Every structure is written in C-alpha cells, then in structure tokens.
C-alpha cells in the first residue's frame, strides 16, 4: 500500500489511537466529584492522606539554602501539635538539591528536583541530561522533567518520546515525573495523547504530571481526570502502573479532597498512596493543617499559628 502519511498530521495517528475527549462532558463529570460530601472520620483520613502526598515545593529565583532548610524542616514535621504524616517529598531547583540532602540526611522525605531546563525545556538536550545526572548525584530521589511542548505540537512525536526515554535512563534509580504542561497543550485530546506518549516509555511507578506551576492554568479537576483515565486505560492494557501528580493551583483542602475523590473513583484504592499520587503544592500544606486542627479542636486557628511554608505554587 502506498504511504498516505503526507495526507495527515503526524499527530493524527496518535490522536486516533487514544481516542478523543469531549470537553463539555468531562467537565460535567468532574463537577460531580465536587458534590461528594466528606465529613468526620473520612475527612480526617482524607486530609492526612493528602498531607502524606504533598511534594512541598519551592521554585523561585530567590530560593536560598536557608529557605530550603526551613522547607525541609516543615516537610519532616508539618505541625508540632498534630499527629500528621510527613510529606512525601520536597521539590526544589537542581542547585538546591545538595542543600536539601544535607538537611534531610537519610530522612524518609524524598527529594525531588525539577530538571531538563525547567520550566520551558528550551535548552540543548546535552545540558538537560547533564542537569538530571548532576541532580541525581547531588542526592535527588525524583526528577521532574518537562517535555518539549513545541516538539509535540509540531508533530515530532518520536523526538519527544526518545527524549523522555533518554532522561529516564539518566535518572538511574531515581523516579521520573514527566510534566506535560497541560495549559500549553491546550486541548484535552492533546493531554490524553501526550499522557500515552509519555507512559509508553516510562517505568512502573514513574509519574506523569500536569504542570510546572509557572503558567496561568495549572492542575484542574478536568485535566487531572483526563490523565487519570489515561493511566487507567494504560494500566488495564499493559499492567504497568503509572503514578500521577497534579501540580499548581491546588491551594486548599476542599480542592485536594475533590482530587482524591477523583482518584478513588477512577483508579481505585491502589492509587490512594503517595507512591502513586502526589500533589505538587506549597500553600496547600498549611490549609490541610488548619483543617486538621479544626477537626481536632473545633475552631479555626489564625494563619500565624502555622509556620511558614512556601507560597505561590
């Protein structure tokens, strides 16, 4: 058969293979998650689960070793008055990894580092790989990479896939989180397709992640749902469990609980663990703590009762 490739966009076969997503219907679907009523013991359990899933993040140009130290302290002991789990990880820029390792030592809290020319990814591959390797050498347990959205939109799918594979290799034992930067992919169709593209070269337990937190639209229930459904379909098809990390824009407990409801009702119990689900967030943590104290003490505490984490992510 003659090649008909010239007749269509290189994206088309991928989009056809994974199938479309209806925007109106998926937004309606996720709105139903927000009507779940989570009270009493289930609320406390949900809030603690959310704390254990936080990747406590600081990604600012003005980050210093001192800032990272206070972040690490907060990560290990989120609230002295409350019986809460530690957060899953701290997430910092590559240059801060070595300080984080110094402060955390062999703590259970993992160190995640954004790498590969975060947040744009518009850097030569060679330096991006070096960045990953250096971060791992400095003590990072997890690497948050960005895909080249430009290459994806231009239809250079093989390039995008190969690059993820190369970074995964450079990670060694570190887990990889692939940031799709959903707001730059724009359509739900693209988010679903890019999820499959990434998952096809990921290892069991690696993550796909919504956003860098550096654009105007970050994690939403709808794009989270598109990715959860992609993970579900991929898992049922291949048996490979991929983890998920929505990042940016999840600022309060109510939102976090809604995201967890989506996980519970889409992927089930096996994903309700920090091994398989994370929140990339900073200000979320203090709101979770505030709600937990409210559950314990019956009243809301003033914001200054909680030690400063980082804000703006």
């Amino acid at each position: 058969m003659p090649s008909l490739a010239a007749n269509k966009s290189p994206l088309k076969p991928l989009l056809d293979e994974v199938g479309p997503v209806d925007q109106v219907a998926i937004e309606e679907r996720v709105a139903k998650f927000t009507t779940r009523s989570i009270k009493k013991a289930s609320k406390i359990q949900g809030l603690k689960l959310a704390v254990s899933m936080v990747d406590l993040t600081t990604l600012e140009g003005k980050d210093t070793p001192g800032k990272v130290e206070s972040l690490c302290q907060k990560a290990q002991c989120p609230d002295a008055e409350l019986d809460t789990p530690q957060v899953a990880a701290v997430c910092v820029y590559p240059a801060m990894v070595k300080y984080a390792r110094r402060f955390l030592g062999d703590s259970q809290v993992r160190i995640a580092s954004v790498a590969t020319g975060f947040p744009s990814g518009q850097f030569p591959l060679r330096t991006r790989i070096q960045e990953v390797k250096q971060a791992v050498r400095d003590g990072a347990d997890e690497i948050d990479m960005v895909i080249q959205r430009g290459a994806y939109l231009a239809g250079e799918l093989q390039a995008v896939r190969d690059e993820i594979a190369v970074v995964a290799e450079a990670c060694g034992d570190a887990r990889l989180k692939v940031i799709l930067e959903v707001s730059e992919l724009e359509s739900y169709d693209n988010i679903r397709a890019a999820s499959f593209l990434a998952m096809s070269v990921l290892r069991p337990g690696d993550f796909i992640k919504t956003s860098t937190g550096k654009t105007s639209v970050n994690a939403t229930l709808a794009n989270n749902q598109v990715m959860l459904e992609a993970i579900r379909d991929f898992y049922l098809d291949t048996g490979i469990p991929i983890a998920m990390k929505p990042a940016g824009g999840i600022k309060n407990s109510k939102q976090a609980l809604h995201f967890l409801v989506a996980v519970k009702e889409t992927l089930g119990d096996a994903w309700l663990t920090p091994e398989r689900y994370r929140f990339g967030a900073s200000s979320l943590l203090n709101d979770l703590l505030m709600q937990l104290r409210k559950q314990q003490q019956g009243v809301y505490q003033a914001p200054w009762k909680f030690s400063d984490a980082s804000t703006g992510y």
Partner: protein
Amino acid sequence: MPTKSKPARKSTRHRTPELLFGDLWEFDPAPELADPKLKQSYSLYINGQFVAPRSRKYFDSINPSTEKQLARIPAAGKADIDAAFSAAQTGYNKYWAKLPGKDRGKYLYRIARLLQDRSREFAVAESLDGGKPIKESRDFDLPLAAAHFFYYAGWADKLEYALPGVSAKPYGVVGQIIPWNFPLLMLAWKIAPALATGNCVVIKPAETTSITALKFAQIIQEADLPPGVVNIVSGAGATGQLIVNHPAAKKIAFTGSTEVGKAILRATAGSGKGLTLELGGKAANVVFDDAPIDQAVEGVINGIFFNQGHVCCAGSRLLVQESIAKVFVRKLKTRIASLRVGDPLDKNTDIGAINSKEQLDKIEQLVASGVEEGAELFQSSCSLPSQGWFYRPSLFLGVTQSHRIAREEIFGPVLSILTFRTISEAIEKANNTAYGLSAGVWTDKGSKILKMSTALQAGVIWANTYNKFDPASPFGGYKESGFGREGGKQGLCDYLKIVP
C-alpha cells in the same frame, strides 16, 4: 501507544490487571438534615382550602427506603372530584378568565420564588417519599421545577407572540394526572403552562408520591392564588378515571404508562376533550466507534441509572458499534463498580430506592425473563441496605432485538446492550421499537450527529450528552410514547385552542 510496551516489562504482567474499588477510604454517612416538615395526615386542596375527603378514605404513603409509613394520604372519591371541578369552573369564570396575562404571570413568579425558598425542604420530602437520591432532588428536580414556573411566568403576558396572527383561547378547566418518577417536576410541567395560558386545573399526583404535591398546595395558598384556580386531589387509578371522565374537564394531560395512556385515549374519544399524552420509552443510546469513549460511558451510565432508571426517556437500550463493544462494556463494568447504592438522603448516594414494591417486582420479573431468554446478566457487587426496596445496577449483554428486555420498558436500573456494524443498522435498530420518546448519539463527527438526528424517530435527541432538560426546550414523543409537547413555546400551544 498502549500496546507498544517493551518486551523487558513483560515480567510485571502476572495476571490480568484489575482495579480495586474498595473501602480504603470510605465516606462517612452524610445525611441531608433539612426538615421536610411532613404532616401525619394530609388533606385535599379544593377551592383554595384544605379539606378532608368526602369519601372518608385514606391510604398510606410509604418510604421506599425503609418500607415504613410516612403519612396518611386522602383518597378522593366522586364527590371530591365533583367539588374540585366545580371549584375550578367557578375559579375560571369568576377570576382567572378575567385576569390579564401580566397578573397571571405575577402569580407564577410568586410560586417560583416560594418554591425556591423552600427547595431544600421539598427536596428532602421528595427523596423520602419517592426514593430518589437527595443529590438529584436537590440539584435537578427542585431547581428545574422552579425554572419551569419562572419560564412560563414570562410567557403569560406574551401569548400573542407565541402564536402570531392566530387567535387562541384557553380550554378553561383541565384535568392533569402525573407519574411517580418526578412528582414535583411533573407537577410543575403541568401546572405552569396551564396557568400561564389561562386555564384552571384539577391535578392528581401518583398514589405512591403524593406528599410533595400536597405540600405544594401550601405554596399555592401562600401565593394567594384565587380559589379554585389550582385544585390538588390525591388518589389511585380510580380517582384518575373520575378526572378523565369528568364532563367539566375540557382537556386531559397525562404522563405515565403507555397502557394507561391508551385507556385514556379510548375513554376521551368522541368526547371533544383535548388530550396530550407523555408515555413510556425504550430509548436507544447509540455509541459510534469514534465517540469520546469515557464520556460516552458516563453518558450511558447517567442515561440509565439516573433516578434508578425510573425515567421515561431513560437510555435503556445501548447500541454500541461492534468494533468498540468489548472495550466499552469493560469500561461500563468498571464504572458501575464505583456507583453507590443506598440511603436516598445520603448526599453521596448515586442510586436510591426503587419507588414501590410493585415496581421492584416488575423489574425482577423482566430481568428474570432476560436471563431465561438467554441474555447474559452482569450486576454490580455493591452491598444493598438490609431494609427497603433496592436494586443493583445491572447490564444485559448479548441482547437481541426480539428479547423482551429490548422491547419492553423496564423502568429500572437495567441496561440492555446490543451492537451494530453500520450507521444504517444503527438507525434501523434504534427505530425498531413501539416507542419514540428520546435517543442519544455519541460520536466525534458533527455530520453524523446531524444525520442521526433526522433519521431517529424520537421527540428528543441528545448528542454527546444525555438527560439534559431546560424549560425552553420542548419534550414529548413519537408513536406509543404519546403526543403533545411540554416545555418551550410548543408547550403553550397544547393548552390553547385555536379560535377560527
């Protein structure tokens, strides 16, 4: 992409991967606590007053989720129905016929606002009496009922624009009989256009769900409607017959089963009475292989399990294209695993109680016939409450056109799944039914939607969605699903007679 995993990873594939929807993070009970303000015993509402039935007969309204008595409901007899029609006729002659449209509109706006004010109270009463989940009565029935009154309030003084160049007048007194699946909403669909067009009504709710209608009488009284304009009488089929056959009823509007609809058609034949019927359905939800699959699954679930499947326009036949049937059914089964069946008043309940023991028996009987005729039954493994009438969400695979479960309306949470290969086969199968109330089409291709929407014989066709309602959009059927339209401008015309 999913199939292109590297060979090295095959070691992780020990058995078929499955998802576990368990109780790792279980939701605590979240009951809606608003007071439904129920009375132990209700009265008929005739001529602007609450009156005891002259028949002196009462029957019990049962809470389907506990099987316990909720309230005593009067059973209106002949003398009561005569009194109601006489009040309606007087109300029409003395007040309503003389009132300008804008004043009728004022009353309707007032009713709409009062209903909104008390919506939580009414939602709880509706769920207690009928068994539907509170999230549906709260987010669907009540807001939509109020919206119907608001919508038709707006039309009351603009009727000449609804029928330009035509002179039309109201029937006078109309008899209305409504079903038990959406008690208050169907009451709104009936009363709002009737009043807007200048008619007076005698309305009878279904015997298993009379409470919200009789509570609504309080709103009519509070709104200070002139006496006799709205009369609410409760009772069973015999009461309904009295309404249909009453000589003062100039028009009958009925929503309910096709069987009763046919009886009403026979009874009113030759009487000169106007008639609209909104009857049963066996809607096809047609899913093409290019559809957004997960959203289609969600739409199919919503189409059949909404209100426990007690919906005349329920998408009870799934027609799925053969090439995606396997994956689609697998996804349906997965989705059903996370549906929560239980206490209708719990805010997290997805599927509530079956409305009556009688209806539960009917569902069980039809499901048994499906199994007997060789279809494969799949049911959710969810736990059911020990008390009350509940039914598991159910799928039938391998259904053919001749199965009873593909032809008869089950009116319960049971989906019959059929497949098709081509678009013409889909159209043929979808239309191969005595009914024609609604249909759904799922595809990513716009032109296919247009083709299907003209080819399907159904009053309402939803594209890439299901069970969407709006007061401005007419609703009604083809064939044995009845005639006449409710909602929209068309809904006005069915309460007006054209004057030659």
